[in-house]
């Protein structure tokens, strides 16, 4: 329980930052709706249900990445996971209806996705042959239902 609290605090801070970023971005209504969705997920998290599109992390060895590197270095991999039911727009509802009624010829448009909208900074590490490698866009920084 003591471990959970700091994580929640961090997540709150992240989400606030994300919300601020979105507002400053000023894309439009879609963003507002998304922020609302996040607010809900925040509340859900406070309750401890952990629903919605969320940023999760896992501690890995670089060799676990299967990118072909040989090194003993480790890293924290962050990824996006969770449902996006609350983030459906009119577009998504219409798309579901048209798909259900088979109005789209063989097209299978993708539904709302929990995906990273920002990535962690590049990471550099030293491999076993004493060469430096840099990874780009390897880990998520922010998640959203897009």
């Amino acid at each position: 329980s003591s471990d959970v609290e700091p994580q929640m605090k961090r997540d709150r801070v992240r989400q606030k930052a994300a919300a601020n970023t979105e507002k400053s971005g000023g894309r439009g209504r879609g963003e507002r709706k998304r922020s609302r969705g996040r607010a809900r997920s925040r509340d859900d998290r406070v309750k401890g249900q952990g629903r919605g599109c969320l940023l999760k992390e896992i501690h890995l060895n670089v060799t676990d990445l299967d990118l072909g590197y040989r090194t003993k270095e480790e890293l924290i991999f962050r990824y996006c996971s969770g449902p996006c039911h609350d983030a459906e727009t009119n577009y998504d509802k219409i798309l579901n209806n048209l798909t259900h009624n088979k109005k789209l010829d063989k097209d299978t448009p993708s539904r709302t996705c929990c995906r990273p909208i920002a990535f962690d900074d590049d990471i550099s590490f030293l491999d076993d042959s004493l060469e430096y490698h840099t990874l780009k866009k390897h880990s998520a920084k922010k998640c959203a239902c897009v």
Partner: protein
Amino acid sequence: MKLWKFAAIGLILCGAALLLLVLKVTPSSRAPPLPSSSSTSLTVSNSSSSIEFGGRQRRTRSADGENSLVSEFMEMFQSFTEGELKQVIGTLVERKAHRDAQLSKRTKRAKKGSKPCSLRKLVVTVSQLGIAFVSDETIAFHYCSGECDASRKNYDFVLEAMKKKGLLRKNKARHRPCCRPTAYEEDFLFLDNSFQYKTIHEFSAKACGCI
């Protein structure tokens, strides 16, 4: 006059036969007509009487000679024609089958190489959108569809590896970019069937991207 006619016909048939012989190489087609013509002549000779036999003999001689020639060529012609027809039909059928196969291959290729993520259009009525509005007005609904494999990043490869190794609690995280709208068209104003104005927000895509 009759002789001339028969001679002309005979010559024409001979020419045709020669052409066919030159074109065709199969010798087996020659054999069938000969025995049938000989059997025909035997039948004719048996059926006639003694007195009439004499009179008919004269007629039948000339007639038999001419008829036998004519019948021979006719039968040869027919047999060749049938053979040719069969071969031609067979060839056509084979060609058609081949074309169909090619078509199916093309179709498969087209399907395999599906289009990348792009904006697509569908014209429907407002009622068909299925969002509780009843109106016969037509609307152009734009949506995003297509492949995003070319837009995969390190994040996607790493995530896929993690999922395969079972290192994640839930394997539901998506490890491929999504073809989704990056912008929506402006609100759509329409008249419903009860003559009231309605507006739809964020109903149609304006631009697509792999996210």
